[in-house]
């Protein structure tokens, strides 16, 4: 007796045969035990498959339960965020269209006491803020464009993550400046702390011209066009100004971002300054060290410890009790100079040392080399060594944090979201850290943030390497597999990047892209991990649903 083929039996069991054929199969099955058994087996197989697949063998992951909450809420708040960011974008457009940018900065007054208005609209007092303001506006515009794109693409989940961070940034910037321990003065004209006046707390001043003749028992935070300090500051002086003159006494440190800084008084501790011209006058005295970045640095007074200079021109005619490390175009040591420590200078020209100068030892000069390093063999040797070092660093990180590494790499595989977030983190975090350093949040927080940001930079390339490795070899099953892919991907990224580095602009852009991508992936993974968890109860909340008889695999059809 001929048996039915399995295909026919399956189609019969699944009610896919026409009536005539089905009747023929049914008639055959009544007489043929083997075919009857096969039909029954196929039916049982169907039921087994259905049962196995429908069985609730694992609960809904908490990530998905949490996503439910986020999805529920995002309908509401995301529109608020979008609206807020849109307003920022509209404001930016307004400032560009209605008034010329430069005039706007010069004329802008205070709109309130928020850090945002303080930092953004007082830009005229320090020209460096102009670029920062521009950056903020560019970020706002980019965000607006990004949100438009996200809305059109309806990728709300990724948009939500980005929006949350952005909202946090803007909220932090817009927080009112705290009062209380800080005495706050703002004026568009001049501010003066009279000689007999004493401020018992920190003093926060924003004004055109400032004059401090009295005593400040805390720190001074100054934002303005110029400031002259003839009084006594017992804490630190943090100054953003076009011109700064220190005639009096500062017991703490000076941290300044200025065009001109002149010190004729005394500074108890250290000076860290970014400016065009800095001059420690012959009457001036700094108890600690001085670190200066600028065009021209002159030291005529006395410096208690080391001098570190990155300047076009360095002129030293005073006394330096510590060592000197300078880098720039030219260096001159005058006849009245008394240098107790070693002097190292790296520049284009040998330093000019006057015969009357008193030096502890001869100046160690290193000629700055501008030739291309890419033609040298040892450059590539070092590239290999650095690559190996990074792979080792990545290996340690992946072994220490295997789960988080995996999550980060997975986040990196979605190109759009991490790059978008990376752009934000790359620019916004240093700004936020600097703001934290110079304002009220605190230097430790700012420094820690910057340190984490730098760590993120180093780690970014490793993450990108792992993503590339995954693309090539497919996803890894375990940590060592991921490490292997990271090593391969990292090496490939380096191989591709090294020749691009010759093309400076392209090289920088590629490096930026890699950093933003990697940092965005890390940020995304952190966001996913530390966003609020909601207990998984979704599986238990499926509404009762009656399951009607399963018609298609319901058994052998009666003839």
């Amino acid at each position, binding site marked *: 007796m001929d048996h039915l083929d399995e295909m026919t039996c399956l189609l019969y069991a699944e009610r896919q045969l026409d009536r005539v054929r089905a009747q023929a199969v049914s008639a055959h099955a009544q007489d043929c035990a083997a075919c009857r058994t096969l039909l029954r087996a196929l039916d049982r197989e169907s039921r087994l498959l259905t049962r196995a*697949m429908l069985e609730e063998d694992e609960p809904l992951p908490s990530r998905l339960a949490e996503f439910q909450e986020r999805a529920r809420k995002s309908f509401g708040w995301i529109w608020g965020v979008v609206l807020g960011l849109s307003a920022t974008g509209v404001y930016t457009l307004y400032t560009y269209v209605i008034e010329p940018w430069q005039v706007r900065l010069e004329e802008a007054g205070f709109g309130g006491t928020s850090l945002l208005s303080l930092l953004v609209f007082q830009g005229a007092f320090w020209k460096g803020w102009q670029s920062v303001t521009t950056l903020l506006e560019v970020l706002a515009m980019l965000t607006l464009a990004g949100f438009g794109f996200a809305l059109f693409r309806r990728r709300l989940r990724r948009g939500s993550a980005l929006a949350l961070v952005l909202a946090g940034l803007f909220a932090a910037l817009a927080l009112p400046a705290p009062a209380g321990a800080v005495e706050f003065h703002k004026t568009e004209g001049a501010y003066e702390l009279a000689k007999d006046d004493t401020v018992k707390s920190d003093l926060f001043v924003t004004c055109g011209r400032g004059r401090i003749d009295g005593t400040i028992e805390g720190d001074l935070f100054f934002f303005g066009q110029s400031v002259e300090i003839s009084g006594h500051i017992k804490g630190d002086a943090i100054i953003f100004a076009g011109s700064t003159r220190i005639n009096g006494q500062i017991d703490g440190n000076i941290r300044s971002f200025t065009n001109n800084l002149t010190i004729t008084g005394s500074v108890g501790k250290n000076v860290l300054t970014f400016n065009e011209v800095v001059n420690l006058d012959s009457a001036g005295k700094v108890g600690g060290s001085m670190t200066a970045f600028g065009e021209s640095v002159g030291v005529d007074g006395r410096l208690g410890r080391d001098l570190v200079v990155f300047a076009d021109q360095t002129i030293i005619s005073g006394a330096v009790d510590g060592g000197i490390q300078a880098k720039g175009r030219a260096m001159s040591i005058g006849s009245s100079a008394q240098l107790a420590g070693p002097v190292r200078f790296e520049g284009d020209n040998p330093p000019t040392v006057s015969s009357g100068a008193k030096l502890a030892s001869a100046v160690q000069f290193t000629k700055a080399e501008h030739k291309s390093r890419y033609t040298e063999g040892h450059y590539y040797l070092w590239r290999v060594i650095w690559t190996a070092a990074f792979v080792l660093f990545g290996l340690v990180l992946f072994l220490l944090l295997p789960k988080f590494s995996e999550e980060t790499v997975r986040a990196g595989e979605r190109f759009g979201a991490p790059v978008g977030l990376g752009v934000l983190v790359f620019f916004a975090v240093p700004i936020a850290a600097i703001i934290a350093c110079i304002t009220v949040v605190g230097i430790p927080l700012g420094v820690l943030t910057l340190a984490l940001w730098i760590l993120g930079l180093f780690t970014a390339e490793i993450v990108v390497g792992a993503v590339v490795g995954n693309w090539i070899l497919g996803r890894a099953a375990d940590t060592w597999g991921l490490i292997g892919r990271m090593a391969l991907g990292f090496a490939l990224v380096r191989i591709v990047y090294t020749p691009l580095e010759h093309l400076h602009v392209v090289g920088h852009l590629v490096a930026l892209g890699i950093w933003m991508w990697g940092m965005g992936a890390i940020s995304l993974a952190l966001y996913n991990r530390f966003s609020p968890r909601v207990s998984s109860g979704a599986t238990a909340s499926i509404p009762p649903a009656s399951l009607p008889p399963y018609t298609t695999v319901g058994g052998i059809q009666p003839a």
Partner: protein
Amino acid sequence: MEPLRPGSMSVPGMTQTTEAVARARAGDADAWGELYRDFAPAIFRFCRRALPTREDAEDATMEIFMKLRDKLTQYDETRSFSAWLYRVAANHCWDILRRRKIRQDKETDDVETVPLEHPDPNQLDKLIEQKTNEEVRQALHKLGARARMALVLRYYSDMSYDEIADELGVRRAFVGVVLLRARHELRQALEGKNALAAGGTS
């Protein structure tokens, strides 16, 4: 409690879902939450069966619901919501597999080759009787992507042959062939023989 499948809802359940869909379309966040709470477990399980790893399934579930939100306006309320939802999910998972190129070209070649052998019914019966649900699930992950997807669409989502043909891009007449070949692969995997191992395991 029986998991949700297309067409498996009671009338009250369907009414509630229809109302929730209407409210979600109008921008009601709570309604969206209801839909997610009701259907996410079943869709996650669908993705878990169709995709190689648990992480893939988690990602896909979220992406499907994001898509769903966009497509909610396209949903025809006269049809079953869960059936429509499974179509969206199936499309998404199949797209994922296609993008990753883990669908094997060989499968395309074989799709219209009808296996005509007559297996030993008693042996097949015995094999099925011995295997547990867990073993079947493990074996499923050893199948090729097309075979696995075909079985999931048919026996998990309860899709018709027409719908499966549409999803997998094969002629309707050959859906049975695809399913039969998938069953053969599954049996081999259950017996410990190498199936078309593709897609890895979770």
